[in-house]
């Protein structure tokens, strides 16, 4: 909980600036993507008559996702630039003690390629994770009760599979995210950064991974509660935007807090160096 406490303490100081930076991708994500669809599909799954692999695929991915090429590009590009900005702003704040947003292009230039590589890797991990969930849930249902409407035990097994696989995928995602500050601050190459990231997370793996999963737990609980209420599309978009905003802002700050804490680096934002 140490890193989580430090992250929330930091967000108290700088949440609004980071929220402003991360607003564009959060709106894009909230409009086009259901938060944590690979875990929140369970209530809909329990009501679906499953005839095969494709029916569960349709619950996790939007069936018309092939038509959504431009929104996908929009999400990726906005997320890329926002993460570059937010991570550079936080890094500068931690190293110099100043929370500034004066030269956005210079900030983007500092971390563009590390963020791009990590974002591509994270997208690949998330797609593989979602496909594995779909495959294993369809296999488990066939073994438990055959295709058709899933029984209660099949739904429970599906929930366990999706959550367990999410935790497993986050064990790979957490070190990937740490690669950004390692590449930006030390100038590590991709392979050096990934090795050092695993080494850093290995110092305190359970705490580091739990801290990263925490916002997803909060969003998951909120999504499950909301799934019991019929809500209109506009409200759905606003709620999703808020959730994505929370996840992106929290994770940006958390990655930097984790990096500075695990590396034992001094954080100058905690002291007043400049007046």
């Amino acid at each position, binding site marked *: 909980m140490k890193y989580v406490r430090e992250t929330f303490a930091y967000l108290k100081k700088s949440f609004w600036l980071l929220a402003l930076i991360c607003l564009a991708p959060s709106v894009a994500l909230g409009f086009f993507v259901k938060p944590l669809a690979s875990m929140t599909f369970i209530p809909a799954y329990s009501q679906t008559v499953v005839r095969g692999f494709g029916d569960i695929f349709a619950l996790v991915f939007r069936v018309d996702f092939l038509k959504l090429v431009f929104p996908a590009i929009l999400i990726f590009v906005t997320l890329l630039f926002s993460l570059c900005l937010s991570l550079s702003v936080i890094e500068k704040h931690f190293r110099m003690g100043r929370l500034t947003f004066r030269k956005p292009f210079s900030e983007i230039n500092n971390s563009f390629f590390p963020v791009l590589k990590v974002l591509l890797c994270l997208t690949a991990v998330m797609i593989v994770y979602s496909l*594995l969930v779909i495959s*294993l849930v*369809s*296999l488990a249902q066939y073994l438990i009760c055959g295709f058709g409407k899933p029984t209660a035990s099949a739904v429970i097994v599906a929930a366990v599979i999706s959550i367990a696989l999410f935790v*497993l995928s986050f064990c790979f995602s957490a070190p990937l995210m740490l690669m950004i500050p390692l590449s930006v601050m030390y100038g590590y190459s991709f392979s050096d950064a990934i*090795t050092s990231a*695993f*080494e850093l997370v290995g110092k305190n793996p359970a705490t580091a991974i739990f801290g990263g999963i925490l916002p997803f737990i909060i969003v998951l609980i909120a999504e499950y509660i909301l799934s019991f209420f019929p809500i209109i599309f506009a409200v759905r978009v606003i709620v999703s935007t808020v959730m994505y905003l929370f996840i992106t802002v929290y994770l940006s700050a958390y990655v930097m807090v984790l990096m500075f804490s695990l590396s034992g680096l001094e954080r100058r934002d905690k002291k007043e160096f400049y007046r």
Partner: protein
Amino acid sequence: MSFKNAFKILVSKFGLVWVFMLYFLCVGVIVAGLSAPFLTVMMRAIKNSGISEQIATTYQGILDGNALSVIADELNGIIGSIKELFKSDKGFSVSSAVWVFLVLIVAYRFIAGLYELPMASVAEGLMSSNARLGFFRRFVALLGRSCRFVLVKMIYTVVFDAAIFFALTSMFALFNIKGAVFFAPFLIMLVLVVLLTLRYSIVAMWAPSMVVDGKNVFAAFAFSVKKCIKHIKPILSSFALSLIIIIAINLFIGIFTLGVGLIVTIPISVMFINLLNMTLFFGKSNKRYYVDGTVFNPPTVADGIK
């Protein structure tokens, strides 16, 4: 000596077995996920054709203690029905062929084989400097080399395993020859152990020489083959003994714990084989190494030992 030292290192660094278990769990999840679309089609076809009832009857017969001849007849019946299904159901034949080729032969071997170089690197840390390196850190650091290594090694293992498979299946014909029936199980197991010993001996120093000496994939393979030919007696005897013990322990524990014990014994067996590769490599290269905190000097020709 290599066998004894590999066992000592295994016992002294037993914590690595749990890391291995986690790795094999991840491999299992990925392979199950890849298999699911094919398995559901295959299982549906098996259920519709009534073969699942034949399997259930045979299993019930085994539990009831039916005679071996009855069980063998029932198993033959199941194999015949599957052959029929293969001919009559196109969906089943395509799914099973794609599953065997893409998932079992290519994907499984590739993903599961990625552990070998990191494992050798962790063992090198233990043996050359008594240092504990993280398995997953080494896994990530060596991923590129591991991919190249596994792709080349797959050619060797697929060819060798196919040869073992065809040798053993053709030996089942011995059961139809009067008089040979009594010796057939003995001969089949003997051939299996001999072929597996050869399979493991030839490539014993492949991964260690890539990690320790930094050789490329083909140079390391050539080095391993040369060393195997040069030291054929100790290498073959170490692997023959190890494989007999591994098969016996896995069968014994697997049967008497209804399969649960295999969760632990399989990672132990895999780790032991890799440690044996390392101790053989260090021993035959006359390199000193740590065994449980103390330095071991391999005996040389000057000591009167070949």
